[in-house]
């Protein structure tokens, strides 16, 4: 894969107040970065400076960003990769609503209000027939409709990825049904099935065991020079990546949650074989201007050497 074909994505973690290095740093960024206007501006600058797309968890803020980008016609040719469910938001909601039943009720009401006929019918069918897969597909359809409503019908929604907490929870519980329903939900949406995981070798092994094809799927997983969150080990993650030719693996946490210096981080990622691309969060305009060009040049150097 040439450097030009690498998919460089701007991520939304900084907009959500996330710093995996420390909460101190997240607080130090201030609240500006978490406003929709500022976040949209950073995404827009990133797009104009080499970013090919936007990877985001589906929530009110990211939807506002998409809405702004649509109005500015800034995202027309860019790839959108959406992560659902945004577990952080749902866990907090569950705390407020008194656990899973309260949350389920709230989500059901939102699905009905969305007027997504397929989601409503599929959800009703799932509820009546105890079909958990149907409920899952209804929910994912609802999330897709939220994205399309905000980003516009012509937006290039490339993949719907399962959030890492859900992917990894489903792996732990051997929830084959969820992965199958996820593939179906993506097929119906015309998107590539995507998985966000911190346990890449286990994900690949399980999908193969269940006969769920990885061809054409998108996998976002941590890859960084420190092996941070590359479970069970850096070596095993690299080995799986090396033999995964038919999937599109996107590296995240390339800075080891802010612990690596930028040049070391990029050098490591650029040398990895079979990587489709990388996602990086930016919290300042100057970062948005330089990050993706630097990353692209590193991929070019690695391809030339």
């Amino acid at each position, binding site marked *: 894969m040439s450097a030009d074909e690498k998919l460089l994505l701007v991520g939304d973690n900084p907009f*959500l*107040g*996330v710093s995996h*290095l*420390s*909460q*101190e740093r*997240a*607080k130090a960024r201030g609240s500006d970065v978490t406003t929709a206007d500022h976040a949209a501006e950073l995404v827009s600058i990133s797009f104009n400076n080499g970013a090919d797309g936007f990877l985001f968890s589906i929530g009110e803020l990211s939807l506002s960003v998409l809405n702004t980008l649509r109005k500015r016609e800034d995202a027309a040719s860019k790839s959108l990769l959406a992560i659902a469910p945004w577990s952080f938001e749902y*866990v*907090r909601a*569950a*705390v*407020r609503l*008194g*656990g*899973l*039943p309260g949350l*389920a009720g709230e989500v059901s009401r939102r699905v009905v209000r969305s007027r997504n006929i397929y989601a409503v019918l599929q959800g009703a069918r799932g509820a009546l027939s*105890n*079909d*958990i897969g149907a*409920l899952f597909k209804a929910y994912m359809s609802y999330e897709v409709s939220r994205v399309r409503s905000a980003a516009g019908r012509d937006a290039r929604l490339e993949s719907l990825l399962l959030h890492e*907490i859900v992917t*990894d*929870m*489903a*792996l*732990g*519980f*051997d*929830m*084959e*049904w969820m992965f199958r329903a996820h593939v179906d939900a993506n097929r119906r949406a015309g998107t590539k099935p995507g998985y966000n995981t*911190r*346990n890449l070798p*286990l994900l690949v092994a399980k999908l193969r065991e269940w006969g769920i094809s990885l061809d054409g799927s998108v996998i976002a997983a941590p890859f960084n020079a*420190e*092996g*941070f*969150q*590359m*479970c*069970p*080990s850096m070596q095993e993650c690299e080995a799986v990546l090396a033999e995964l030719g038919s999937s599109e693996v996107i590296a995240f946490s390339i800075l*080891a*949650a802010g*612990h690596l210096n930028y040049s070391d981080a990029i050098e490591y990622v650029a040398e990895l074989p079979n990587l489709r691309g990388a996602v990086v969060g930016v919290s300042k305009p100057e970062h948005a201007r330089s990050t993706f060009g630097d990353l692209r040049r590193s991929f070019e150097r690695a391809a030339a050497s």
Partner: protein
Amino acid sequence: MVNVAIIGSGKMGILHGAILGALPDARVVAICERKWIIRRFGKNAFPGVRVVEHLSDLAGLGVDAVYVTTLPGSHCEVVREVFEREIAANVFVEKSLAASYEEAREMNALAEAQGAATMVGFQKRFSKTFDKAKRLLDEGAIGEIAGFDAWSYSSDFAEASADARQSASRGGVLRDAGSHAIDLALWYFGDLEVLAPAEGTPLTDLPADFSSARVGTSSGIVGTFSVSAQMADYRLPEIGITIKGSEGRIDVNDDQLELVNDRQTQRWHRQDLADSEVEFLLGEAEYSRENDAFIAAVATGLDHGGADFEAGARVERIIDAMLGAPA
């Protein structure tokens, strides 16, 4: 293979169950859940797992260990029934152990009679930064310990100031968020006594706004606790302690550890301490290490290095004293 039953399928039950499912030496065989809607769909959602309504349904399933992840107010009753019905001898209880010191003592006595492994979900003991701080303290890196300031902050109820009910169901802010900091202090410094109430200490810890207390040890260490679930800046819960010694200071939280003494200033981020090196990562790596240690203890009978019921009861004693409950 250790067969596990999860009692209560909320956030923590699901988290522990998924991690256990990925461990090579453990298997989740049953989930006990009172809410019918979760049972109804759980039967299809969790393949190979029996989803039952009553604790009595777990008897005879060959369960080696139970994880009690219901709300803290029910822990004592659940553990009592688990032992009475001989469902399992080994018990993990999510923090905090009980709703009072009295309940915690009863649970500890019942567990001691079983002679099996117990653990309370104080997973911060398995965090690399807090573990490193413990080692530094044991090595005397800051000399004689003089005092500490511990805090536990989250934004869980930052947007729900009026909703004390949900906080109360989780045991109140002290038991829900503060118990980690109290357990760490007991682990680091030994037994504590609550000193004269700090200004503003509530008679109860409702609503879930803020609690604080001063504590001391028999060796003269004086410390403070500050706990709140309404700190909007704390997107994720954060536990931290600043420890002052005769020769320096340690600042430690979930993310990093700083040692300042007359010889050096050193800082370790969790990345420096290989924090994420676990077989399976879900949530934070400390949960994987915690579950691994408990399952190994069940399988081998060896010490797990975490907080057992006795340690959990010590936390409850401090909380009760902070709340002004009679000893």
